[in-house]
């Protein structure tokens, strides 16, 4: 593969020639960077490597996660590994899952002008503007489910003309939903009570004391749920 196809990219304006098959992150490393900021799970889950770029000659500002986006010829890029954001402090248990729970902490959601820049910029293809719309009208459930796949990379907030920090609105909605709207699990509560009541204490002690052969027999003969 020595004849790998190479492309020119520009990291913060500086030109590097890299194999075309690489992701932005790998290309930066190929070029000699050892990343500290702007690199996390390298698998698209953590939101550390938000990157903005333009292709030479194209007016459009594009975005992507550096670990998930392939380089292109003429790519001018920079990473946005950190973006200053307002994060409200709250006691989730004491809140009611209503519009006012969100608007009292993040009143700026009503400044949304519907430009949809957040949605266009989301590397997870979430409908960000729409989940903010749900928050505005107190539809916590839909705000929570619609925002669920958010990796909190901050690109939405970086582009918002209304200064909204969408991903922090999203996590508040999700925690309100998980804590106050989703039905609680009764079998879980029952098991927690049983454990507190010591129902399994003796059984666990017996297992801890059991000999190897005894355990193996029990294990190899245990029934397996379909």
């Amino acid at each position, binding site marked *: 593969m020595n004849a790998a196809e190479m492309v020119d990219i520009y990291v913060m304006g500086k030109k590097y020639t890299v194999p075309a098959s690489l992701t932005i992150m790998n290309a930066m490393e190929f070029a000699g960077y050892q990343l500290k900021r702007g690199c996390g799970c390298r698998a698209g889950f953590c939101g550390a490597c938000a990157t903005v770029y333009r292709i030479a000659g194209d007016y459009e500002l594009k975005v992507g996660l550096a670990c998930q986006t392939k380089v292109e010829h003429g790519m001018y890029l920079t990473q946005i590994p950190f973006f200053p954001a307002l994060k409200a402090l709250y006691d989730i248990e004491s809140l009611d899952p209503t519009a006012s729970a969100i608007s009292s902490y993040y009143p700026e959601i009503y400044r949304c002008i519907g430009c949809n820049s957040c949605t266009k910029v989301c590397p997870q293809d979430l409908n960000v503007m729409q989940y903010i719309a749900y928050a505005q009208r*107190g539809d916590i459930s839909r705000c929570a489910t619609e925002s669920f796949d958010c990796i909190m990379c901050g690109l939405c907030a970086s582009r918002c*003309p209304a200064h909204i920090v969408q991903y922090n609105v999203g996590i508040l909605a999700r925690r309100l939903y998980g804590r106050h709207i989703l039905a609680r699990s009764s079998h879980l509560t029952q098991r927690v009570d049983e454990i507190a009541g010591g129902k399994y204490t003796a059984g666990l002690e017996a297992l801890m004391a059991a000999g190897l052969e005894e355990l193996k027999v029990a294990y190899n003969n245990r029934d397996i749920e379909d």
Partner: protein
Amino acid sequence: MRFSYYPGCTLKTTATELERSALKTAKALGIELVEQKEWQCCGAVFPLARDEIASFLSSIRCLATARDKGEKLVTICAACHHVIKRANHLIKNDANVREKVNNHLQLDTSYLGEGSVIHYLEMLRDELGFNELAKKIKQPLTGRKIAAYYGCLLLRPAAIMAFDNAENPSIIEDFLFALGASAVYYPYRTECCGVYLSLNNTQIATDMVEKIVTSARSYGAEALVDACPLCHYNLLELQKKTPQGKPLLPVYYFTELLEEALGLKEEAAVRKDKNES
């Protein structure tokens, strides 16, 4: 009959009664109102700055969504209707706005103002017809003396809203007749209720509400009917602050009266006048 439906935030939060009764009556009349899958706040106030396109993007989005389905867009909230209708007018008539908005939205098919938005009342008048409506009334509101209150948002600016004669409208009265009620005419029915001042200058708004209520009462009205959640809030809440005190003049959404006239309200469930307390 099937329409694309835009509810707006107010109907989902503070004016749930308006939406509930509107959807219930529409269903009974065989009118299908399909809520758009995704919609955003219309902004509630129509922006007057012509170079600021962002503020009516959500209006254009919902108009385009309805257009794509080949349906008219129906609104129930007067404020949403006002914003969306004016946005539609603007994009149709202002080439500069049209271009900027479409450049921004990048829809599959550009939106040029070809869709139309109608208010629920217009739908009843122009699509179903008040005569047809009258035939479906099961419990006519015979003998009820009700005063229509129009407010500003549905009527003005007259040329753009094209809702009715702005100075001397008749659509709500005609609606009342179709329901079998008597309409009370009084001088303040198209005056502003002052809702935009009700938070930062409550006294002025309260004075305006008092004039409307006093006038309607003096012409024999037993209740007011309106079509706007903002007016509705103002007429109910600020009326409590007027020196007249109790008993307050009841205020209904037009859809609540329709619900009653269509026989959709069970006897026991007929709500006590909400401002009786």
